[in-house]
């Protein structure tokens, strides 16, 4: 009896990696670059009087190229329509488009352009790029987790930016004891594989 169990366990342990390889081989190859705009989310959380307030942007144009076989060659470009902001309340929405905040008359769009993507092992990557808001450009680094599911890949990540580095909320609003400097940004982007030629 004992011998049979050991034999079965041995066969299983030998066979399991094969199953794993099989699953891996079944994953179709190819580059993801067909972004699904309806699935994108750009969210943020800021603190006012230490109260976390959630917001998001309704319109974001994302271009990305991600080849699982050569992730370091990936590129991302984001054009964010700042007027599409929901900063948590009607009052805040009419306030933040104004001059002290995003000044969207002069700067309607924020952009992010990736400069490097570094694999961190597994499905985790580190992306660095240039974020431009209100005419000010800063380097930003964010972790990205890629979840592949057949021909779809989801890209999730987040980072913290300092709003005052971009002069978001200057003048009387620069008092960080009322509205904190740190803003947590998180994103979710989905893309499908490029159609086979």
């Amino acid at each position, binding site marked *: 009896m004992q011998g049979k169990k050991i034999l079965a366990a041995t066969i299983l342990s030998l066979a399991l990696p094969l199953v794993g390889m099989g699953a891996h081989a079944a994953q179709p190859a190819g580059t993801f670059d067909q972004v699904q705009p309806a699935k994108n989310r750009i969210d943020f959380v800021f603190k006012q*009087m*230490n*109260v*976390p307030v959630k917001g998001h942007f309704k319109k974001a144009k994302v271009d990305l190229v991600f080849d699982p076989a050569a992730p370091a060659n990936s590129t991302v470009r984001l054009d964010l329509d700042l007027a599409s902001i929901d900063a*948590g*309340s009607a*009052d805040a929405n009419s*306030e933040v488009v104004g001059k002290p905040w995003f000044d969207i008359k002069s700067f309607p769009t924020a952009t992010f352009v990736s400069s490097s993507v570094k694999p961190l092992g597994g499905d985790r990557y580190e992306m660095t790029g240039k974020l431009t808001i209100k005419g000010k450009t800063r380097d930003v680094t964010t972790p990205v987790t890629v979840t592949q599911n057949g021909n779809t890949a989801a890209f999730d990540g987040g980072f913290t930016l300092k709003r005052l580095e971009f002069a978001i909320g200057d003048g009387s609003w620069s008092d960080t004891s009322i509205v904190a400097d740190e803003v947590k940004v998180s994103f979710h982007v989905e893309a499908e594989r490029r159609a086979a030629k």
Partner: protein
Amino acid sequence: MNASNKYSKPAVIVHWMVAILVLVALPLGYYMTDLSLSPRKLQLISWHKWIGFTVLLLLIPRLFLRLTRPVPAPVDTMPGWQRAVASLTHVVLYVLIIAVPLTGWLMSSAKGFPVVYLGLIPLPDLVGKDEALGDLLKSAHEVLTSGLLILVGLHIAAALKHHIIDRDETLVRMVPLLKR
């Protein structure tokens, strides 16, 4: 004046703590609502919420004292209808002093702004973010506040009337410093 005609010292202290906080929170609430959005407004709104929650916390010892210790009987000279109005006013005041901060807290949560007491302790959101519910709770908070304002006015007017016109012991029981 014998012992049973007195409020206990803790009851007097907690009455005046609640009274002062309510008398600050009421005008602050009306004032801050009319301000346009500014850092000052956000600060005042937070202070208003902290005061409101402090009132709710003080209602715990207050109700405990009220329910466990004898309340002095109204002065002998008071007619029956006045006794009835007085005890009804007191009951409704207790209800509103709980309902007003509670609807404020719920309204804040429904509007997507959790309350962080004193900027340190996040209070649970008893309702999720829901714009329609937020507007409803805002109306409730405002209507109940108007009611509270009327009853506080009646309560103060009655106390002064007892002291100045009737010249009885009613107010002195709650303000030991006034002892004649």
